[in-house]
């Protein structure tokens, strides 16, 4: 599904990723943890192709494509989805408008016919119900006046609608109470079908109680410094990152 080799990336001339390696197979869930400022969000942006995130070295293969050669929207249409850590507002543009365009852009890429308004609405309603968002959220401006938790659930709603093959969730759990956390986790779990893969970026072990990862990686100083299973997350919860013997300057600067 995804193979990252020796990835180096910088933002505004500052090196953030320094030789990151990661390999994800179909259907796997990989959790990425790490101190603030380690480069977790940067990894998500680099993979999705955001402007200003310069790849200086390395290779990324996504389902047989050279990911780094594709435009942002092409990556999306190929099935790469990023749930944002800080979802942005777009006043006056409803969720529905954006998602209808999105879904049909993806379908066109897959040589499928566009959904009719009715077909789309049906899917959109189901997606809203899955994350317990009232249907009126489809009509509201994107993230306009949404609470923190509503924004995160809305990201998952969009993910469900787009049926991506690789989902990158950037701290979809931060700022959520336990109930909301459960809703988000259920939404994600509902999409685990053995084919779809996930990168779950989180600070907290508790999310992984709900979304069981196949692997847990620690990202620090721009690379994966340790890989394990769910037990690694538990250890970090207890002991912090200290046992890894990292230099903590990254955390201090974040």
């Amino acid at each position, binding site marked *: 599904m995804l193979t990252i080799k020796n990835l180096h990336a910088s933002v505004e001339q500052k090196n953030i990723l320094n030789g990151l390696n990661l390999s994800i197979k179909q259907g796997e869930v990989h959790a990425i943890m790490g101190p603030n400022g380690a480069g977790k969000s940067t990894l998500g942006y680099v993979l999705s192709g*955001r*402007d200003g995130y310069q790849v200086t070295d390395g290779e990324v293969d996504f389902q047989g494509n050279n990911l780094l050669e594709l*435009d942002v*929207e092409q990556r999306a249409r190929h099935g790469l989805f990023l749930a944002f850590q800080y979802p*942005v507002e*777009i006043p*006056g543009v409803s969720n529905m408008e*954006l998602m209808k*365009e999105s879904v049909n852009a993806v379908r066109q890429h897959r040589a499928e016919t566009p959904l009719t308004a009715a077909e789309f609405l049906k899917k959109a309603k189901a997606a809203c119900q899955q994350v317990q968002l009232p249907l009126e959220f489809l009509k509201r401006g994107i993230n306009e006046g949404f609470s923190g938790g509503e924004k995160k659930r809305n990201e998952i709603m969009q993910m469900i609608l787009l049926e991506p093959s690789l989902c990158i969730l950037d701290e979809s759990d931060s700022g959520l109470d336990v109930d909301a956390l459960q809703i988000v986790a259920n939404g994600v779990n509902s999409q685990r079908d053995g084919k779809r893969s996930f990168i779950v970026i989180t600070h907290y072990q508790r999310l992984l109680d709900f979304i069981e990862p196949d692997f847990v990686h620690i990202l620090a100083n721009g690379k994966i410094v340790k890989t394990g299973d769910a037990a690694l997350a538990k250890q970090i919860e207890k002991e912090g990152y200290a046992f890894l013997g990292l230099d903590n300057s990254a955390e201090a600067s974040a």
Partner: protein
Amino acid sequence: MTEQIDQALSRTYDAGFISDIESETFAAELNEDVIRRISAMKNEPDWMLEWRLRAYQNWLTMTEPEWAHVHYPKINYQAISYYSAPKSMKDKPKSLDEVDPELLRVYEKLGIPLYEQEMLAGVAVDVVFDSVSVVTTFREKLQEAGVIFCPISEAIQTYPELVKKYLGSVVPRSDNYFAALNSAVFTDGSFVYIPKGVRCPMELSTYFRINEQNTGQFERTLIIADEGSFVSYLEGCTAPQRDENQLHAAVVELIAMDDAQIKYSTVQNWYPGDEHGKGGIYNFVTKRALCHTNAKVSWTQVETGSAITWKYPSCILKGDNSVGEFYSVALTRGRQQADTGTKMIHLGKNTKSTIIAKGISAGHSNNTYRGLVHMGPKADGARNFTQCDSLLIGDLCGAHTFPYIESRNPSAKVEHEATTSKVGDDQLFLCQQRGLDAEKAVSMIVNGFCKAVFKELPMEFAVEAGKLLEISLEGSVG
């Protein structure tokens, strides 16, 4: 992203084709003789010619206004032709079937299929090509309701009493430089009269097209809504792509009698010039409404075209409880300059006005909102709400807001809100991450920004306006 956006604005203008239609065009010059000839072409009565000549005398004593935030070389008024008409108009067609098929094709190309508008949409259309009105549809049906909808040149002949009484009653001949010029040389335009208590049974619309080279278009529109009546009117405008600038100086006067309502919508897509600022229409327009007791006038405008736009559709809220509204979207790109806004003159008691102006600037363009809210000494309890929002696309464009407030009445209230925002890289990235290309993303964000105005347009035109924005923004990201 900004870089991509800047490459932007080089797309071609869809309505820019030139039609090969045989025309009768006056030589470029301006003097009394030209005015006499225009008047003669139109078979005008003497009083009309007199009126024009007096306007011309006024104009000669006036100077071109320079206060607007726009820059352009001096216009040589002697280098413009003031009259051009398709030859085939000599025997004026009575219905669409008699219209020169070449002309009909022009409108097809513009996406204004006249037949369809007539058949399906149930919209009555008046079409003004260069200096003449070529066809007005649905006239019989409107006549049944007592509604008069015809070229103003015809109204001058057929309804001289109405024209005499109201022409220049809202925008006097000497109101301003361009209005005076228009009063002297106007060639055609639409005339509407809605009788007492009548709700006009359909949308009325006029399409203006400048085709001929070096011609100016000076149309004049006069709408009178008698007591308790209602009318919704839409004008659309386009022009071919030409290297030289062309002048369009129109005057629109609306009279809303007691309890009457007029909704006036404009979708303006004159040729804006190329990306270096070569060519394009100078759109210098005076639009004003007079509102009597309990009357309401709404101006809604979507301005995407013209090299320079200078227009301030205004309401004189003379009658008590009268209402004025102004909803505007002005989009500038390339080297376009727009200085537009409104004047709400509150004279009567409890008069209300709402101003919602959305300016979008891209490329090297400049977009200015200029608005005046005047509360007269007798305007007890008058209210105004103004909201001006500017949206910037890229770093090289400008947005400016000049709100003027004059309050002579302590009980009057004026509220003003203004925002400036940029189409954010993060917003574009979100849309693209969801699979939209950059162009679609920008147009979606801009459409969202304009939503409050689009919802004021008549349904079928709201769609048109949305599409127009989308087309205008095409190429605005790389």
